[in-house]
């Protein structure tokens, strides 16, 4: 019986390791890409992007992230404001149709925490940033489809990316929360 349990544990460990190292495709149905910005130093406005995708690998030594967001999918609950955010005053989506993050190095901080250094390209400007990533959980859903959930919370300054909207009405610093679920099939 003990031998059977040991074998089962070994198989479970190996399969878990193998599953985690597989490139996972972002499942937009079970993910969220939200941001928070301060309006005129008065209040916070939350918005989200509805079109994004990419892949990531969670592995002890070779974790990697390659995420793309379509800035034209910005949604703050007010169509006119969303259209303004797409204009050259902010994202200039006609000229810069993608926001991308590609990791260059990922450091394991703990079993559930990573620190990804990578290139964030926004508004045609690429800058290296460090993004703390929390591994929310791993599992199968539905049975046979391996999934890993991650969440990254970080801030970017619009001025760093030459976005020259009006700082009096939209704060320079934006908080971004990317809560992504990746699946192996």
């Amino acid at each position, binding site marked *: 019986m003990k031998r059977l349990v040991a074998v089962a544990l070994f198989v479970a460990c190996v399969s878990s390791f193998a599953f985690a190292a597989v490139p996972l495709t972002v499942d937009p149905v079970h993910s969220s890409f939200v941001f928070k910005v301060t309006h005129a130093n008065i209040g916070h406005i939350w918005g989200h992007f509805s079109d994004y995708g990419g892949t990531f690998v969670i592995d002890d030594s070779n974790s990697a992230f390659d995420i793309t967001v379509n800035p034209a999918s910005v949604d703050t609950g007010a169509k006119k404001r969303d*259209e303004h955010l797409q204009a*050259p005053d902010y994202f200039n989506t006609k000229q810069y149709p993608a926001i991308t993050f590609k990791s260059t190095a990922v450091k394991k901080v703990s079993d559930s925490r990573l620190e990804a250094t990578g290139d964030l390209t926004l508004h045609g400007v690429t800058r290296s940033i460090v993004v703390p990533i929390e591994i929310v959980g791993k599992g199968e859903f539905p049975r046979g489809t391996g999934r890993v959930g991650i969440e990254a919370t970080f801030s970017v300054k619009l001025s760093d990316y030459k976005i020259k909207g*009006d700082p009096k009405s939209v704060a320079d610093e934006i908080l971004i929360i990317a809560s992504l679920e990746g699946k192996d099939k």
Partner: protein
Amino acid sequence: MLTDRQIWVGIALPGLVSMALMLIVIWRRWALALPTVLGIAIMIGYWLLRRPELPPQDGCDWLFWMQVPLMLGGTLFQLLGARWAAVGAIAGAVTYAVLRPIMPAIGPAAIWSSLVVATLWGTTVAITLPWAARRIDSMWIAAALAGIVGASAVIVLSSNFLTYGIIGMGAAMAILPIAVALRRTAHRSGNDGPGIIRGLSVSIMGLLAGLLAGGRYYPHTGVSPFQFHVLGAAPLLIPLACCLPGKRDWVRCVAAVVLPSAIVWCIAIPAAWAARHAAETTDSQVPRGL
């Protein structure tokens, strides 16, 4: 909703700069400097509002830097004479420069068609406005052009392109002091009204074409084709108004200002009203229908 900084720096300041420069122009009798006055006033407001990049990155940067060839083109055309009306084609070059950064998104056909249309506007206006300046006082022509640029700016602003909208309004404010001082400048400098209007028409049509092309193609719901064509061709209504028969010049002067202004503001005011309403409406308040 415009902030105080946008109103004062982007809109009022170009008007004040233009007014100050016009005092020097009148004092020194530099009628040839009018396109430069306009360009400098626009560039100062623009610079303080939104530091442009060099090399230019997007349509905003390009419209700023294209003020330099517009100043040169305007001065050159004023200096060379009516035979060089082809200088008006610079409006097409401005359109091309403004739209080129988004060529992959809108396609070359959109750029080339806009370029051709803007070139036609520019050259036709360069030919016809100096003629109109022989029929009526050039002050009224400049005032009408200010009204057209202002209305275009309001429409561009309403189509979610804030920077261009503010720049356009600032430009309209900068044209007004020039218009007011124009009669005095022309007489004191010994320069003729048609010559001054030649120079100004090149600068203003280049700016107008750039504003409308950028406003049409950069935002997702930009200036409509109807608005684009009507506003771009509106300066041609000025010489049309000058064709009115009769001995009284003031009738033609009033018509030259009122005819284009009435048409462009009839388009701009409803657009601004709708945009203001939309800006204060959330998606959940928009009727979805059945």
